């Protein structure tokens, strides 16, 4: 089984309250020098059969219509190597 990873992040121009709260907490815990934090989601899809162009296109479609809310989120689909 091959693994395809979909990373979903809020679009850069969309406010990310979670990332901001984490960023503000970091210096209090002694982790200095972090200019910005954005929090996202990672989906790991175990694909049956070959990960060919058609399979990737299907996953791309799933990401676009379901995994990500493209009104506010971007996503990246990539095949995880080394399996």
């Amino acid at each position: 089984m091959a693994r395809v990873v979909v990373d979903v992040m809020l679009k850069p121009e969309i406010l990310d309250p979670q990332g901001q709260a984490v960023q503000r907490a970091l210096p209090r815990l002694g982790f200095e020098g972090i200019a910005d934090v954005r929090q996202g989601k990672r989906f790991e899809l175990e694909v049956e059969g070959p990960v060919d162009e058609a399979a990737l296109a299907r996953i791309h479609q799933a990401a676009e219509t379901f995994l990500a809310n493209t009104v506010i989120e971007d996503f990246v689909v990539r095949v995880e190597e080394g399996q």
Partner: protein
Amino acid sequence: MTARVGVVTFPGSLDDRDALRAVKLAGAEPVALWHRDKDLHQVDAVVLPGGFSYGDYLRAGAISRFSPVMETIIEQAKGGMPVLGICNGFQVLTESHLLPGAMLRNNHLHFVCKDQKLRVENNTTAWTSDYAQGQEIMIPLKNMDGRFTADRRTIDELEAEGRVVFRYLDGNPNGSIDDIAGITNAAGNVVGLMPHPEHAVEPLIGTGGTDGTGFFTSILKRLVNA
């Protein structure tokens, strides 16, 4: 003399004033504590209230756990000071490792607000001595991340040592393991639960019952008799 019971306000705490009111109605002296202040102002016990501290961002309770006040609370709790964590406060206690396990999103993925029936499984803790063993009580429940979970060994240990303090009755509202609603540490001074006893202390308000009062009278008796 009476007992001083502190209630911590973290940024995003919501039920802090309700907890202060419940402490007062039980006859103890409520003391407001601030998350940035390490000093506990001579309180005899501490309540970590419900809410969405730091918006529940990252994980519920994960950022509050590192506030200055928690350093002192963790240290004193280990020395035996009674601590009650309600909902978000329970989440802070697990993130602080004062209690085992962790809370996951409710299995139905929705926030749930309802009157919840519980059974008191252990009436020997600092916060439950005014209840009868096995007593059934009605306490409001309201949360998004209320599904208690832990590895099997931890659960077996909690069960074997009688450290499950409350169990959900008439249906599990969030998918928590073994219907667990609340637990205690081995010494019985630290108790955490998801339902909100501070919302069940006046006949007219909330569920319309006073089944939650026992938490606050239990701690008062213990402290005054100590």
